[in-house]
């Protein structure tokens, strides 16, 4: 029997726990705690997360509060609500989505808009990163 079903937190389930592992998680209930997945996290409408989230991709149609990290995409659907600091490779937001957050992403603006960073200000940052 243990074959290809994915982890599902049902609508009438609450977790106050750390959830981690390699698979995908489909969330219709509530999780209070950190989630770290090798797979994808889908928060359905009615589902909620309060905690730090990291996953290969994150899709939010419900509520998500807390920092999000992903090497993939964070997609917030029209019923989705996100509050947190978000560091993802790609972000997409459907019209109607509610979002209060900081989006951290690394990409270059066209050269005309590129900011010239003065050397003294840049020095400590560079040092810390290396």
């Amino acid at each position: 029997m243990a074959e290809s079903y994915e982890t599902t937190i049902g609508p009438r389930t609450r977790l106050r726990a750390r959830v981690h592992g390699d698979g995908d998680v489909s969330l219709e209930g509530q999780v209070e705690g950190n989630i770290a997945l090798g797979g994808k996290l889908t928060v359905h409408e009615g589902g909620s997360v309060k905690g730090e989230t990291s996953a290969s991709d994150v899709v939010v149609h419900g509520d998500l509060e807390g920092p999000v990290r992903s090497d993939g995409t964070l997609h917030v659907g029209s019923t989705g609500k996100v509050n947190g600091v978000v560091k993802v490779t790609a972000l997409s937001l459907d019209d109607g989505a509610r979002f209060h957050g900081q989006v951290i992403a690394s990409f270059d603006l066209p050269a005309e808009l590129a900011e010239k960073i003065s050397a003294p200000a840049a020095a400590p940052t560079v040092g810390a990163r290396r």
Partner: protein
Amino acid sequence: MSTIIAAGITVEGEIVADEDLQIGGTVRGKLTSKDVVAIEAGAVVEADVQAASLTIGGNLVGNSHVTERVDLLAGARVIGNVKAARITIAEGAQFKGNVDMDV
């Protein structure tokens, strides 16, 4: 509708469900359901369990408090006390603990 913790996923903490719970992965902490809890072959549960009924084909370390019935299937490995109205232990199940069938 039910909750499924698939193999490969670990939950450390407390699960409170008002629906069925199917566990193929790992759960550490506390597990409460008003319906059926199924611990599948290969699953690892290190938690106290409260449920209406409990089926165990995998590993359970912890005490269980079940209002209806507990079934230990062949291959089950249970360490802990079981309190339940009814209990079945299949041939091939391993069990270490006390049974309290509170009549």
